[in-house]
């Protein structure tokens, strides 16, 4: 087994998460914090942990409807995350615009600018639903790495 494959195989055991707040109301961010920080929903069982730098991230969780003010910054930070990355849209806002749909200050939905892999609707989604989305993202990440068909 060559070194590259060994590295890939071991790296999928610990996907690092990165949060981008694209103008969210913080409801989804609270749920994201809940999934990681309180023992009841413990996302670290999947090997995940939140990282502070986009350059360390594997799975990026984006909340919020992508407001006009934050639009450029979100794209800049997202572009700093190295490939292969899995983008998860958390909450109805990044998926469809949610209750802000067609608002004057909204440039979303997110998939107009960023290739989204997993959607998890809800306002906010349940912590278990976010865990489910991370598990699904993990599967997609393995596919992107070529470890799974």
């Amino acid at each position, binding site marked *: 087994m060559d070194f590259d494959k060994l590295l890939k195989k071991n790296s999928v055991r610990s996907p690092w998460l990165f949060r981008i707040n694209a103008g969210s109301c913080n409801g989804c961010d609270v749920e994201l914090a809940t999934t990681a920080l309180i*023992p*009841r*929903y*413990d996302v670290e*069982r*999947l090997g995940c942990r939140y990282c502070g730098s986009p350059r360390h991230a594997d799975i990026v969780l984006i909340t919020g409807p992508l407001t006009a003010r934050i639009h450029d910054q979100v794209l800049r930070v997202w572009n700093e995350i190295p490939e292969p990355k899995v983008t998860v849209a958390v909450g*109805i806002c990044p*998926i*469809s*615009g*949610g*209750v802000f*749909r067609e608002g004057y200050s909204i440039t979303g939905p997110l*998939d107009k600018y960023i*290739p*989204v*892999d*997993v*959607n*998890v*609707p*809800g*306002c906010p*989604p*349940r912590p*278990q*639903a*976010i*865990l*489910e*989305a991370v*598990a*699904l993202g993990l599967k*997609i990440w393995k596919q992107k790495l070529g470890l799974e068909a």
Partner: protein
Amino acid sequence: MAAFLKVLFRNLLEGPSTDPFPLAPTKMEPERLRGRVVVDEKLCMGCGICSHYCVAGAINIQHTDDGHTITIWHNACCRCAACRQYCPVGAISLIKDWHSAHEEADKYKVVEQKAIAYEPCSVCGKKIRPVPTQILKKLYVNNTDIDLEHVQHLCPACRQLEDARRSAGLPAAAEKAAVEQTTDANA
């Protein structure tokens, strides 16, 4: 020390507080959890009050001559349950299914769509949505003498005529023929 032992024994007995999901089915499902929206096609009248109150514009109702189709896009639904609150016939409910994560390819497939076909009015033949029996029971709670089966299949105009006949003391359209027969026999 005693307090610590209490905690230790409790933890040994009850196990970890971590919810086993996603490695096993979840143990936490609140009684009144608002999950996915479902529409009862037996009750939906297509009045559109749900789409009027939907803050996210997730509900769309398309009317044709033969029926109507109600579509709820789960990716826009914020689960506020305003539709359930304001639905006059109680056709909308929120079930406990919270499994909402899906891949991008299924983004526009996660919908609740119900097509309701109309039936012709038993008198004039105009296509109408038959009023569900439980709603008729509520509407005619003080008029127990009215045949609900008959009223159900009448269009609003025919129902109005029927009501006018009834208040004037004339026999209803359905009973008319039967009454005429009996009067003929009496004569």
